[in-house]
């Protein structure tokens, strides 16, 4: 097990390690405070109050004062709930939904039966504002645009995109949702100021526990529940709550309210070192996504030419460095990532893409170790690559 734990972990957009301070407040809710919030006795009330404290911690962190926080089991559930829940409530108005081409699969795959307009993005991943404006119709019920993309790190101007939608919505009834899973903890989110209607965040990518996420909803927004039962969570998501996880989720949001600035400062310092040095140490490397200032401070995504991403991920793993890739070989569908495709990355280059997602628990030492190892791995894989030998011999790329 030690070998697994000691790996240098740069896959923090997939899941993050639990903050010990969070785990500590969760423990009694596993072994002592096991009661059900729906029970009317004092023990049940204690759980109910504890859940409400978590809700407040999250509202406060998101500056979502005029909204309700619905706890769900994961961000996929939150995203499904907003899409299907809105589609159900508004089925008499229409079934037109607008999303960007770089949304998470939990958005992309939950649109069955709906009439969908996919808004394109530019080569950096920014949503095309004109297309968005023109896409709004009388029967549009929902717009969902990701706050930040975990793969290429692009951060959208959600406030502006939301105002475009609201200013062109004649019926004043289109719901604007943002999937803020990747932005959370890396961007200062202000729900009220964004003027949006709904937002998804997840605990497990901000050093909280797995098994809990939230859908933040403006108070007046109605969604049809996907799960019916004992009317927990404002009767929008019934079911006995995952109390220890909810307590942990609240705690990490409380901590982040104070620590987000410091975390981002430290993460950005490490990210920038990695960013600058990779281009310095390795030739024929191309950045995917926007420039440093316009992307998540934890994210680097680049393509290393002449080699393939999965073999790069495996080689780094053998050297105890954990990253991810958008190459087709690493994808279950054997296609390149839909995000790299949407930003028009050359398909061959997309095969050599590699994503580093840093966290507050990474260290400069780990970055330096990676910068020592990566060029050695790239050389080994290029020495075995027919594309590289063709390039060296002919001074041009093989078609």
């Amino acid at each position, binding site marked *: 097990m030690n070998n697994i734990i000691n790996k240098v972990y740069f896959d923090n957009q997939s899941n993050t390690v639990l903050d010990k301070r969070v785990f500590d407040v969760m423990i009694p809710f596993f072994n002592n405070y096991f009661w059900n919030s729906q029970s009317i006795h004092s023990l049940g009330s204690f759980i109910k109050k504890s859940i409400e404290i978590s809700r407040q911690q999250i509202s406060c962190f998101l500056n979502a004062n005029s909204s309700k926080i619905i706890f769900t089991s994961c961000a996929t559930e939150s995203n499904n709930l907003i899409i299907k829940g809105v589609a159900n409530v508004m089925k008499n108005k229409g079934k037109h939904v607008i999303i960007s081409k770089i949304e998470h699969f939990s958005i992309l795959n939950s649109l069955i039966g709906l009439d969908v307009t996919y808004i394109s993005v530019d080569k950096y991943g920014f949503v095309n504002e004109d297309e968005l404006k023109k896409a709004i119709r009388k029967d549009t019920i929902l717009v969902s645009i990701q706050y930040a993309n975990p793969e290429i790190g692009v951060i959208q101007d959600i406030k502006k995109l939301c105002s475009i939608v609201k200013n062109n919505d004649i019926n004043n009834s289109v719901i604007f949702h943002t999937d803020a899973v990747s932005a959370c903890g890396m961007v200062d989110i202000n729900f009220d100021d964004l003027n949006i209607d709904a937002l998804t965040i997840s605990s497990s990518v901000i050093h909280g526990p797995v098994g809990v996420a939230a859908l933040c909803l403006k108070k007046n927004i109605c969604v049809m529940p996907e799960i019916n039962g004992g009317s927990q969570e404002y009767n929008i998501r019934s079911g006995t709550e995952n109390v220890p996880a909810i307590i942990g989720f609240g705690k990490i949001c409380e901590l982040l309210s104070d620590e987000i600035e410091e975390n981002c400062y430290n993460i950005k310092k490490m990210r920038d070192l990695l960013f600058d040095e990779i281009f310095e140490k390795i030739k024929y490397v191309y950045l995917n996504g926007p420039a440093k200032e316009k992307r998540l401070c934890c994210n680097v995504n680049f393509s290393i030419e002449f080699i393939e991403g*999965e073999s790069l991920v495996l080689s780094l793993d*053998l050297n105890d460095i954990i990253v991810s890739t958008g190459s087709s070989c690493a994808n279950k569908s054997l296609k390149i990532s839909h995000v790299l495709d949407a930003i028009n990355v050359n398909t061959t280059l997309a095969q050599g893409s590699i994503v580093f997602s840093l966290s507050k628990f990474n260290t400069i030492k780990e970055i330096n170790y990676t910068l020592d190892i990566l060029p050695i791995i790239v050389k080994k894989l290029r020495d075995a690559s027919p594309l590289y030998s063709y390039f060296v011999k002919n001074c041009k790329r093989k078609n």
Partner: protein
Amino acid sequence: MEYYSEKVMDHFSNPRNVGEIDDADGIGEIGNPICGDMMVFYIKVKNDRIENVKFKTFGCGAAIAVSSVVSEMAIGKTLNEAMELNNDDVAKELDGLPKNKMHCSNLGTNALHRAIENYIMKKKSE
């Protein structure tokens, strides 16, 4: 790395016979970088027997491991024996491959077969 067998990981981390043969008797190329896999096999043939194999591969862990093991399996075989090598033999030799990587084992044997066919064609035209 639970995903690949130990044998795949061994061939991936220490691939045998990586390289090119300048005066190869046959060269076989298969795949393309757009699909994510490309292999080039070089063979030396003596008395209808494969004397040496080298390869270069752009591709995933499975593609590199397959190339390595195919090169090992082919050396010393007669041309006919080598032509009979198929993807099941390769997957078996690697203690199995994940389902979605079985096409890599096809690529490996196909690249070898193309090198042999290239040798036979050259021979015929001499």
